């Protein structure tokens, strides 16, 4: 406790990146994540790192591409519209197997939308961050401590699996200040990157970072191989569970929604409903086995999210549509209340536990 410092979620991400050895940050301002850039702008010059405010989100993600290709730990950060602009670049990063960390502090959309918290980029993060077949690792913190911890982990996983990793937060997590224990940041793994572009020095064959394959056979093979790797990565899928053991109503929620859900679950328990929580910490890979296991005991599910219903598809697919799933959602920057979650739990408790085949 003595070692904890108060930090905003955005600042925790920035500090974690620095402690993880990230010395190259490329950003473009956008609310509600500007603190990340501000933090980097302050610290990087003092530690010999690069803070560069790019001319646009597109430039930023392509600077990340360059820095990652050079073998550096590198990061960019933005919020929903800015992340949409990075779609092509993210596809390139994945296609070239370049480790890199991308932060999306989501806000309400579509369009310019608003600046209040949202989770409506879930599909974008987990399904199609850009064109083509690929995935990023997607981590979903729900406290400032986790903003810190998962950022550390994102750098590690990105290097380990040679792929981009995303921190998927929201405006509220970015803005909230909570105590953080940063001591973990002192224990960092490093990886050899013999594929990096550092100049041949005449000592090796040239390295090439490329995603163009005019032979479809070759491109297909690479895609298949990359998806084989993804099978490996699926092992890191994980959840935090709360009162799940005997839960008949299982709430599934990530990020800030999970914390609201906890409060609601506490109340539900007091009211005699056996409610529990599965909080996916990894959104890709999705912890489908954990959900499946829970479905064996549960009667019904409640999905809480700040979107029109996106993660709910993963829940239904994970449990093979074997239980009714209720959606408790807000959108456009609104945040579900504990009361609304509680109400959904109560409704779910009344369900039979048989999948209502017409519920779609």
């Amino acid at each position, binding site marked *: 406790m003595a070692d904890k410092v108060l930090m905003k979620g955005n600042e925790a991400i920035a500090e974690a990146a620095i402690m993880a050895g990230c010395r*190259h940050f*490329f950003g473009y301002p956008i609310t509600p994540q500007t603190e990340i850039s501000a933090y980097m702008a302050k610290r990087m010059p003092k530690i010999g790192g*690069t803070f*560069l405010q*790019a*001319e*646009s989100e*597109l*430039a*930023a993600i*392509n*600077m*990340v*591409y*360059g*820095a*990652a*290709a*050079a*073998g*550096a730990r*590198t990061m960019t950060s933005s919020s929903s519209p800015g992340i949409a602009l990075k779609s*092509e*670049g993210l596809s*390139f990063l994945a296609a*070239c197997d370049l480790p890199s960390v991308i932060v999306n502090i989501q806000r309400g959309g579509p369009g310019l939308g608003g600046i209040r918290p949202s989770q409506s980029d879930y599909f974008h993060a987990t399904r199609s961050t850009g064109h083509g077949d690929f995935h990023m690792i997607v981590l979903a913190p729900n406290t400032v401590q986790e903003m810190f911890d998962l950022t550390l982990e994102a750098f590690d996983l990105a290097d380990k699996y040679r792929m981009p990793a995303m921190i998927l937060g929201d405006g509220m997590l970015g803005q909230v200040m909570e105590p953080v224990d940063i001591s973990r940041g002192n224990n960092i793994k490093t990886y050899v990157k013999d594929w990096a*572009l*550092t*100049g*041949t*020095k*005449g*000592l090796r064959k*040239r*390295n*090439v*970072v*490329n*995603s*163009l394959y*005019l032979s479809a056979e070759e491109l297909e093979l690479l895609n298949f191989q990359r998806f084989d790797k993804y099978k490996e990565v699926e092992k890191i899928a994980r959840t935090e569970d709360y009162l799940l053991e005997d839960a008949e109503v299982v709430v599934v929620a990530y990020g800030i929604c999970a914390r609201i859900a906890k409060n609601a679950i506490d109340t539900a328990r007091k009211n005699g409903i056996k409610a529990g929580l599965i909080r996916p910490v990894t959104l890709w890979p999705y912890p489908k086995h954990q959900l499946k296991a829970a479905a064996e005991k549960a009667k019904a599910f409640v999905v809480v999210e700040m979107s029109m219903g996106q993660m709910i598809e993963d829940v239904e697919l994970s449990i093979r549509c074997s239980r009714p799933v209720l959606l408790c959602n807000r959108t456009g920057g609104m945040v579900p209340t504990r009361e609304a979650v509680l109400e959904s739990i109560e409704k779910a408790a009344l369900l039979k536990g048989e999948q209502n085949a017409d519920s779609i």
Partner: protein
Amino acid sequence: MQIVFEKPKALSDTPTHYCPGCTHGIIHRLVAEVLDELDITGETIGIAPVGCAVIHFNYFECDVAQAAHGRAPAVATGLKRVNPDNIVFSYQGDGDLAAIGTNETIHAAARGENITVIFVNNAIYGMTGGQMAPTTLPGQITQTSPYGRDTKTAGFPLRMCELLATLDGTAYAERVAVDSVKNVLKAKKAIKKAFQYQIDGKGFSIVEILSSCPTNWGLEPVKALEWLRQNMIPYYPLGVFKDKEVSR
């Protein structure tokens, strides 16, 4: 007998995929010769654009990053910031650099990013089959200006060297052509100077090279060079547009 002219070492043995008579090949050789002469191949990282030169990593014997269409200067920035001792050059066509990538080009120059840009201006989108480029001449017929570029609707060509010369971060900007032996020699000098500026840390350097696209111009290679000489050079005057170390 002694060899007096031969393939530079910085160029691989792989035959290029360029069309017969396409001067991309000449420009490749010039860049490679400069790498050889400055003895920097081992420190150099090239950026391949999206354009006919997209797979130039098969030809240059240095490390190469292939960049998304137009983003080569941003990619170069990322690479250079990580390893400032590397020599980083992008090789870009007119569509790549002056259409989709205008922003990245201008801001890399404005930052005085210590990189070198080899800008191959052939007044057309070669790779995609001959569409109008930002540098397509007024009246020039292309796939997307089938009645000749009409400045009323398609606007005016960009003169990138002139534009970039207005920026404080640009150290060196020169336009050359590879239509004749004399100009090829000048082009090489310019390329060498641009790399030397980077080695000396002087700031952003760019060499715009007027180049031919026999295939999409619909001309025999020799005729294409004539067309270049008669039409492009008057519109895109050769010469040095900026030559001044960036003072920070």
